[in-house]
């Protein structure tokens, strides 16, 4: 059972290593053409079984975007503003013409996210939290999708003392009591790493040749 698991893991890692990588410029040319400086985050669409997922996203997404050099509008303020207009979830947020966000807030781009999975998994002496999300950054000027990423991030919560019983218990505890905020941070950071950096970042406009974007995670618009 363990040997089988190991060989599956091996294949997964191998396939990861062999994924075609392209440069940021190749993946997201519109980001370099438009050079958005500010990003407005709307509530996520939550398709996961974790009721908390949208809130975990909302409270952790600002940081990687800001560290990537973008001005980020206060996520809780925007959430309250939208709620007062009757927009309470991500599906409703999508029905607003994006130019409205330029008109009201002067936002250059709007970040939409669909949370597809948020699962806590137990296996032999291991545990993990698996989060799958699809991100789309839409220009308020052109209504084009200028950045997108679709990823599944696995965060390991396994115990590894070498003692089977101790590991089973510590994994179960760690996985059950895990503080999901740091995990949400890790997921968001992983995904935002593919984004060209913005105005406030040192490498603004000079990261185009960075080759680290996995082509298969950059999906076609609308698919």
């Amino acid at each position, binding site marked *: 059972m363990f040997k089988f698991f190991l060989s599956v893991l091996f294949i997964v890692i191998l396939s990861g290593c062999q994924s075609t990588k392209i440069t940021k410029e190749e993946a997201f040319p519109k980001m370099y053409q438009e050079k958005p*400086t*500010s990003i407005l985050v709307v509530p996520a669409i939550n398709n996961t079984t974790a009721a*908390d997922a949208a*809130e*975990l996203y*909302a*409270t*952790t997404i*600002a*940081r990687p975007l*800001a*560290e990537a*050099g*973008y*001005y*980020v*509008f*206060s*996520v*809780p*303020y925007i959430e309250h503003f939208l709620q007062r207009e009757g927009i309470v979830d991500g599906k409703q947020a999508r029905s607003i013409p994006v130019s409205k966000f330029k008109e*009201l*807030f*002067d936002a*250059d781009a709007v970040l939409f996210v669909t949370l597809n999975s948020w699962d806590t998994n137990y296996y032999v002496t291991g545990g993990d939290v698996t989060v799958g999300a699809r991100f789309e950054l839409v220009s308020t000027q052109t209504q084009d999708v200028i950045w997108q990423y679709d990823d599944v991030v696995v965060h390991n919560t396994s115990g590894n003392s070498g003692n089977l019983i101790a590991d089973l218990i510590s994994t179960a505890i760690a996985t059950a009591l895990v503080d999901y*905020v740091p995990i*949400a*941070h890790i997921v968001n950071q992983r995904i935002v790493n593919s984004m060209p950096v913005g105005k*406030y*970042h040192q490498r603004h406009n000079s990261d185009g040749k960075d080759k680290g974007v996995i082509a298969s995670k950059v999906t076609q618009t609308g698919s």
Partner: protein
Amino acid sequence: MNFKYLSMILVAIALSGCASKTLYHWGNYSDTLYASIKEPTAESRAKHKAELSNIIAKAEQKKKKVPPGIYFELATLEANDGNKEKAKEYFSKEISLFPESKKYVELALKEMES
């Protein structure tokens, strides 16, 4: 023994290197915000408000910038508490740090005055 010590130093250097690479000081922003949303009580709100002030104070100490939205959020909380002058001060700090915020600060100021 020596190798262990050396690797500890290397880890410390690597970690500190990672830390100094961030643009901003974030403190416990996500944790207090999450708590105030999950259980919206006067206490959790006060904790988040305190954390926002803390971030501003610590950022100065650590010579890092205050992140986007921190002054803005603190301003909105002060406005809700009726401290209009403080709110105005924090709103204008947000604009001076981030000119991109001008329009929505003006929106928030209008909301405060109405």
